[in-house]
């Protein structure tokens, strides 16, 4: 008897919902259930589940906050629950921002954990660069030179020092130096007119006399002649204080005004 050829058994094809469910489950398994990454590795599944829970909690908190504040209510405003509405709205705005930032930090930490040294050194290098660039911007005119100088400084005595915490601190010092460069420039610019007043007898005199006269005229206009006489001490005090300021300024800035012409002439005549 002739044997019949074996007919291959054909299994029924799965339905579309089954295919979709299987695809989704594989995808989820891949996304959320990663195995250990070797010895000492990080179990990503834990971090992922934690992240998912964190984001869900944030979303729920935001929704609850919005509901409480009445921002999403389409009918009557929500009954007051005793909290200031503005604070709740501010909280609702802050939660997603803080959540996004935390997720970013968590994601970074998770990535950085695997490749400690290289990443940390690269990060330090970038931070140092950013700080020295900031210092150059702050320094203004001398910024370019400071930037080149900071390059040589941070390269160290060997010229090939790698960026690390100490270098980061030095780079932060350069930011301070840049700010102080700018401060010195501003102080120099401000001291120019001050020095001009201190050097000139005429301008110093104006600086003392004009405000004193203005005060006297003001008192005379609003309070009368008698008050000018009675408050003579105060008006005189204004003049004295300004004269004292000029004297102190000359001493501090080490500035000497030229001698009066009469005294010069007397000296030339031999004190006669």
């Amino acid at each position, binding site marked *: 008897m002739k044997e019949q050829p074996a007919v291959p058994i054909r299994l029924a094809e799965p339905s579309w919902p089954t295919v979709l469910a299987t695809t989704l489950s594989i995808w989820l398994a891949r996304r959320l259930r990663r195995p250990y990454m070797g010895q000492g590795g990080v179990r990503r599944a834990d971090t992922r589940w934690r992240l998912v829970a964190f984001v869900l909690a944030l979303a729920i908190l935001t929704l609850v906050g919005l509901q409480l504040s009445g921002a999403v209510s389409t009918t009557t405003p929500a009954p007051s629950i005793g909290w200031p509405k503005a604070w709740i709205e501010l909280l609702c705005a802050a939660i997603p921002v803080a959540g996004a930032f935390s997720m970013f930090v968590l994601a970074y930490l998770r990535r950085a954990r695997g490749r400690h040294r290289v990443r940390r050194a690269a990060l330090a290098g970038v931070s140092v660069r950013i700080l020295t660039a900031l210092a150059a911007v702050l320094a203004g005119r001398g910024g370019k*030179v400071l930037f080149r100088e900071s390059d*040589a400084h941070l390269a160290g005595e060997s010229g090939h020092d790698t960026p690390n915490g100490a270098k980061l601190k*030095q780079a*932060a010092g*350069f930011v*301070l*130096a840049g700010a102080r*460069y700018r401060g010195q420039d501003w102080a120099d610019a401000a001291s120019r007119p001050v020095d001009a007043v201190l050097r000139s007898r005429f301008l110093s005199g104006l600086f003392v006399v004009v405000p004193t006269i203005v005060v006297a005229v003001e008192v005379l206009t609003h309070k009368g002649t008698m008050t000018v006489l009675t408050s003579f001490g105060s008006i005189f005090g204004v003049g004295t204080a300004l004269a004292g300021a000029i004297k102190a300024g000359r001493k501090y800035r080490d500035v000497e005004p030229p001698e009066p012409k009469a005294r010069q002439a007397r000296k030339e005549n031999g004190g006669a």
Partner: protein
Amino acid sequence: MASKIRLTQVILDVLDVLAASPPDDPAWGLRLCEATGYGTGTVYPALNRLMKAGWIEDHWEDPPPEDRPKRRFYTITSTGRQMYDATLREREHRRASWLRPAPRTGPAS
């Protein structure tokens, strides 16, 4: 033109190092920081102030090295040295006058 500057302890320490540096091995930023013990945020503004006052001058490393960034060297000028010496003398004189005991004016008993 050299001008007078306010002499702080930082400025004096920096000038001490610069005055002691030999001409063939001048001081640069990192060495000044190490020698004085101050940070970069203190030493470089002091150097900038001294440069503006004309007490010190700078020059970049020449020829520039190929394997590292070129350095900026600082040397004290003759004017700077004169001012520095004069300041030191003045300080010594002032200190001596403070430490000197006041002369007795009353009749000895």
